[in-house]
């Protein structure tokens, strides 16, 4: 595909001379009287368009289709010619839309029949069109700038479509000669300019428009090379719908378009809302959407029919009512913008509105064998409708070996959920063109560097990591990968570390994998050593990022468990730390809740840790802890003594019962009585005492 083919630039030259004001002599009744009101009323005379109106609306239709299918890179320069030249827009991309052209055309208005025909000519327009074709477009400029010393690869080609009313074949030849001469002149001029380019190839399409009922004075002529630069063709067409047909055919030829008719579209009847009839809608799009039909010579089998215009063929595809709205990734070999042929007919607008609302429609290719093949899909993206070509032939990739049979396929404990979370965090979003960061990096480079930072230490399987299985590490792990840290972030990281220190002091179990090792796995202090090492590994990979990152590492190095001789020294500072820890813990708990735990496994880990934390809180032997509850003499042998972890080994039964009790206690609200009980005995009618002014706090425990 060539970017700078003839269709890159199209100059429309429309004749605005007095004779274009003539009627096309096709009458349109716009006074459609309803039966009940028609009595006694004389209907208004029908209206008829002028040649000018016909030319304008057909050329606008040409532009409408062109802009629908090619919103960029195919440019139109619209020129109106009478006694002078009116250039209605430029090659600039921002000028390329029909609204602006319509406004400019309104300013020009219809031709003035009283103007002196002698001083009016379409020649002015043709000369202007050639001059305009020499002007460089922003795309040509961009390509030339990018190519530097091979800038001469950027070609300058274009097409002039001239809508006029010619006098005779001689007149046509005169117009052609004029274009050829102007090209030669302009090319000389352009050779010496930076903003101009000589025309290498120009196609002149002369459309002679004449009123219905007249005999044409100009004969049709096939495309003919007038010189190595200029080719020309002449179409002699009656105004009105014939002209519309002609320009529709031309836009298809000029821009490689093809037509598809969607058939069997169910649509509610306007009059009878509960009945539905089937409609057809014809769409235009790039002809590559039919490539499979064209190549296989299947065009006719695919239900294509010749249309009234004679030249045009359309492929019929059948609507398949969409069943679900599920998002699916179809194997799609092409997607082409469409433009409805009859844009504001009811069936067309029903179809386009349906699609613009976000539904996709699969299209079925009728086959002679009667088998059903889905070959295309209509879908809108951001307010543009595309015809997607779906692959309907056998795939060369069928029956591949499953990923579980290849490398790494036998590993079962991948951190799938964690990586899913990672992917969500690394989703992309568009940034405005001006958005470059301080280092001048494009957003996509920032995305890559974020991925790099976040994967410096990223174990792929659960059994390879301890820290990523621990809720307690999450705040630090999330922050340390950032490009910059605030003081507050550093504080959060430090708190995380202190929290770990605290866990270690309490000998909380760690979620260390026992895979591959026999028995219980490593001992507790060994577990913590592994955990600290891993945490250090993680933080070390980010140490170079900033001084604050370094501070986090420093904190870890300072706090992590040291060989026994250092243990003593550390103990001294411990009490103060404990206090700090407590106040911090409140904050931490809420943080943990905010973090969306994603896997059942992780939840388990988290709950276990919390359990153990709360367990520890009860039996904490710091001076702040409340007096032991069971100071009272035992009345009976206790079945369910609170666990006393600190005093030697606990039996398996106790461990188990505690676990079950704790699990159960989460499922219901504890009885007020049991909560305030002492050794499973609760005092009844306490409020009576209260009312009597007696001290209920005798156990040193507050009632709720």
């Amino acid at each position, binding site marked *: 595909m060539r970017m700078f083919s003839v269709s890159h630039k199209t100059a429309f030259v429309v004749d605005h001379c007095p004779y274009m004001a003539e009627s096309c002599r096709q009458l349109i009744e716009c006074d459609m009287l309803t039966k009940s009101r028609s009595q006694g009323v004389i209907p208004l005379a029908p*209206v008829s368009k002028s040649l000018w109106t016909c030319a304008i609306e057909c050329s*606008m239709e040409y532009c409408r289709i062109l802009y629908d299918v090619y919103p960029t890179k195919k440019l139109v320069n619209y020129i109106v010619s009478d006694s002078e030249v009116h250039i209605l827009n430029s090659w600039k991309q921002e000028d390329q839309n029909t609204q602006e052209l319509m406004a400019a055309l309104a300013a020009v208005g219809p031709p003035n029949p009283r103007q002196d025909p002698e001083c009016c000519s379409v020649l002015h327009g043709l000369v202007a069109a050639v001059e305009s074709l020499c002007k460089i477009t922003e795309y040509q400029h961009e390509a030339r700038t990018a190519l530097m010393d091979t800038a001469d690869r950027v070609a300058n080609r274009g097409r002039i479509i001239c809508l006029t009313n010619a006098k005779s074949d001689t007149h046509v030849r005169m117009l052609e000669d004029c274009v050829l001469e102007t090209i030669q002149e302009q090319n000389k001029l352009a050779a010496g300019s930076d903003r101009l380019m000589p025309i290498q190839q120009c196609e002149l399409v002369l459309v002679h428009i004449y009123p219905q009922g007249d005999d044409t004075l100009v004969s049709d002529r096939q495309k003919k090379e007038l010189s190595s630069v200029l080719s020309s063709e002449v179409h002699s067409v009656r105004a009105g719908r014939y002209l519309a047909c002609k320009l529709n055919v031309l836009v298809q030829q000029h821009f490689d378009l093809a037509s598809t008719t969607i058939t069997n579209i169910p649509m509610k009847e306007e009059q009878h809302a509960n009945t539905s009839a089937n409609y057809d809608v014809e769409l235009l799009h790039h002809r590559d959407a039919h490539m499979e039909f064209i190549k296989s010579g299947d065009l006719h089998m695919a239900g294509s029919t010749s249309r009234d215009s004679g030249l045009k063929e359309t492929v019929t595809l059948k609507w398949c009512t969409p069943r679900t709205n599920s998002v699916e990734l179809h194997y*799609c070999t092409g997607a082409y913008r469409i433009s409805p042929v009859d844009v504001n007919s009811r069936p067309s607008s029903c179809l386009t509105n349906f699609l613009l609302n976000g539904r996709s429609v699969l299209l079925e290719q009728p086959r002679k064998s009667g088998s059903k093949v889905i070959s295309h899909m209509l879908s809108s993206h951001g307010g543009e409708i595309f015809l997607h070509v779906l692959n309907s032939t056998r795939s060369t990739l069928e029956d591949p070996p499953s990923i579980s049979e290849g490398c790494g396929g036998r590993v079962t404990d991948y951190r799938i959920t964690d990586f899913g979370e990672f992917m969500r965090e690394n989703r992309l979003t568009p940034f405005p063109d001006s958005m470059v960061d301080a280092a001048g990096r494009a957003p996509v480079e*920032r995305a890559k560097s974020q991925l790099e930072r976040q994967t410096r230490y990223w174990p792929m399987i659960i059994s390879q990591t301890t820290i990523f299985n621990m809720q307690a590490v999450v705040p630090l792990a999330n922050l340390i990968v950032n490009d910059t840290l605030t003081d507050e972030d550093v504080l959060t990281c430090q708190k995380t570390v202190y929290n770990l220190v605290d866990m270690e002091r309490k000998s909380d179990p760690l979620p260390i994998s026992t895979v591959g090792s026999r028995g219980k796995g490593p001992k507790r202090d060994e577990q913590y050593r592994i955990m600290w090492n891993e945490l250090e590994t993680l933080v070390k990979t980010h140490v170079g990022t900033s001084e604050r990152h370094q501070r986090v590492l420093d904190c870890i190095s300072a706090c992590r468990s040291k060989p026994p001789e250092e243990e003593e020294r550390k103990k001294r500072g411990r009490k103060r730390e404990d206090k700090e820890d407590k106040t911090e813990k409140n904050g931490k708990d809420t943080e943990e809740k905010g973090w969306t735990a994603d896997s059942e496994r992780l939840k388990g880990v988290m709950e276990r840790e919390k359990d153990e934390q709360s367990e520890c809180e009860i039996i904490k032997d710091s001076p702040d802890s409340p007096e032991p509850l069971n100071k009272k003499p035992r009345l009976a042998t206790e079945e369910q003594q609170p666990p006393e972890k600190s005093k030697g080994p606990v039996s398996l039964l106790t461990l188990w019962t505690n676990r079950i009790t704790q699990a159960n206690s989460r499922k219901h609200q504890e009885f007020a009585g049991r909560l305030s009980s002492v050794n499973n005995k609760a005092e009844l009618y306490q409020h009576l005492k209260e009312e009597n002014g007696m001290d209920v706090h005798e156990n040193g425990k507050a009632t709720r």
Partner: protein
Amino acid sequence: MPTVVLMDSSLSMTRPVSVEGSEEFQRKNLAVHGLTMLFEHMATNYRMEFTSFVAFSSLWELLVPFTRDYNTLQEALNNLEDYDKTCLEAALQGVSNIVQQEWGTSCPCQVVLVTDGALGIGRGSLRHSLQTVKQRVEDKKFPLPFPFPSKLYIMCIANAEELQATDGMDNLEQLINLNGGEGQIYTMEGPLCLKSVQSMFGKLIDQAYSPFHAVLRCGNLTSDVQVFPRPEPVIIDEEVDPLPKTVQTDLEIVGFIEIGDISSPPVLSRHLVLPIAVNKEGDEMGTGTSDETEEETSTNQMAGKSPNFCVLLHGSLKVEGMVALVQLGPDWFGMLYSQADSKKKSNLMMSLFEFGSEPLPWLGRISQLGPASDAAENPYGEDDSKSPFPIQPKNKRSYAQNVTVWIKASGLQTDVQKILRNARKLPEKTQTFYKELNRLRKAALAFGFWELLKSVAELLERECTLLPDSAHPDAAFQLSHAAQQLKLASSGDSKYAAFEHNITPMLTDFSGGGGAERI
């Protein structure tokens, strides 16, 4: 890229090759030897390739339909019989049919033609075919170029000198030209022997069947992969940028996008991304090149058990319903996703987007895609309810903006009727009445269709006279006001005929202040 092996089994292939000493070979033996080598290579390094085997002489026969079972292909090769004369055109036509039946016309194929370069005599000879190539009727066209994208590799069991002595070489070159230059001719160097046939097929293997190995990267997470089929170079614009673009061997993930947001994008090609184990010497073990089966199995088992990033990525893409955007080279991107086979198998796949900085209009320029966390506000919403995609184009398409087209009379009539319908429901429909009126006015002015404005003005005036007694007094005022404004516009007076000007409802006592507010 499926392969068709087209084997010449004419009598000339049985010509003996003079080898000093030892046993005597036929050219056919050499051909079989070369193809055996090719099949063995494919079975180990390129085993996802579908290959079919066609033998031809004056007739052609599909001996093995497309398969990945290289034993079957080998067996057919070993049992090949000898037939009569060479008749290439019919065989090429056969290949064309076989491929189209199986894969359609969009799937690129490789055709490996093995021949001794004796291309037949008289009718049906290649010389005869080529001489008449321009005088064909529509349904008897020469089969080249194939209707599907193709590469034609011609393996000559002959050396170049031998071919140049006749017009064999010229004819074969012409064949490649007919196929749009897509393909290559291989000849044997030196004496015709096993060694030279090996070296010739070795070159073919390097050219067309060398596996594409790459490193898939997501930050610091990497995996060695084989991409199958090999991504082929593409030419973007033969004029401005004639250099073919190739996929680089470093596939770097840029970020992730939801399947719903990427929305069935058009792709150039699809490829399997198969993780491979590379040992320290740099040989691939995962694909199994070794002959020692025992060792191979154990290596494979080892590879299966060590974690691989591809498997992790595949699992998460599948679970999350996302794709990974991957950079294939400067200004070239693709996507990685999980593709489920009809059975319970699934795989990591890579699709290549069209070359360029903006392959999908609804994603915008890829270079402008950055991490969502950099945005001031989470573009996906706190509860994942939003999406920054699709990107809206600057201008709406015609079907989304209520354009006016009067090419068919019915279009014009509908628009006039709409105005009249609303005119009869004044003052309730004042707003829609003026909206439709202004739409018609704008179009009529742009098209220079002033006559229509006059006609509609007359219609409105008549409506005014036909108003029933029960009509709201405001209706008459609005109708005559609208009619008057249209008439003024049709005069072309720049004060009233300005395109941007809108006719506004008349302020009447009846509409009161409310009328003005409604506008």
